[in-house]
């Protein structure tokens, strides 16, 4: 597509439920990143993919968080047993190969609210 697409744009869920967030990167971009941003804060790195593999998962805050990417395209970030501290905007970005250091392009994010 023309830009990075994320869905849903907003998600309200009850504490303890599982959620899935989706990212569709720019066509042809092989690197895909997940960040999250709490209210008024900077961006916190979660995980990135080069193709379908995830060389760096160091930012995932706990084992309740997981992500996968299939077909070198769409990625899903799953949060199990959501907690109130998971409330944030989850941002996805894509670029050319990470070692080519090409510009990052972000989607509009998914605003997650855990009640």
């Amino acid at each position: 597509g023309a830009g990075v697409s994320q869905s849903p744009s907003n998600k309200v869920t009850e504490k303890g439920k599982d959620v899935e967030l989706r990212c569709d990167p720019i066509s042809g971009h092989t690197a895909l990143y997940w960040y999250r941003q709490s209210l008024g804060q900077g961006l916190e790195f979660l995980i990135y993919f080069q193709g379908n593999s995830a060389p760096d998962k160091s930012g995932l805050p706990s084992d309740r968080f997981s992500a996968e990417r299939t077909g070198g395209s769409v990625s899903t970030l799953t949060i199990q047993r959501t907690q109130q501290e998971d409330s944030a905007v989850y941002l996805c970005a894509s670029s050319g190969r990470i070692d080519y250091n090409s510009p990052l392009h972000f989607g509009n994010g998914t605003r997650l609210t855990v009640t």
Partner: protein
Amino acid sequence: GIQVEQSPPDLILQEGANSTLRCNFSDSVNNLQWFHQNPWGQLINLFYIPSGTKQNGRLSATTVATERYSLLYISSSQTTDSGVYFCAVGTGRRALTFGSGTRLQVQP
């Protein structure tokens, strides 16, 4: 990991004024990018600038990699420039690390 410091944290300008935003980083990098997050939360890539100087309209950026800093210049500011400006740096195959941002408010 690499540390990124941005200054000033907050900046208020009158429309038409010029400003300089600074980004310091703690280690050698081969990837540095500037982003603008508008009041609606959209993040727009302004510059990919691991070294040297680039200009795009009223915005320009300079990175002095050997001294570990980058500067973003905004000239003749407009109200649409308001938002948060982020610097992000990276090395090798590591994902970008973001600074905490400079929040800019341009008043009419």
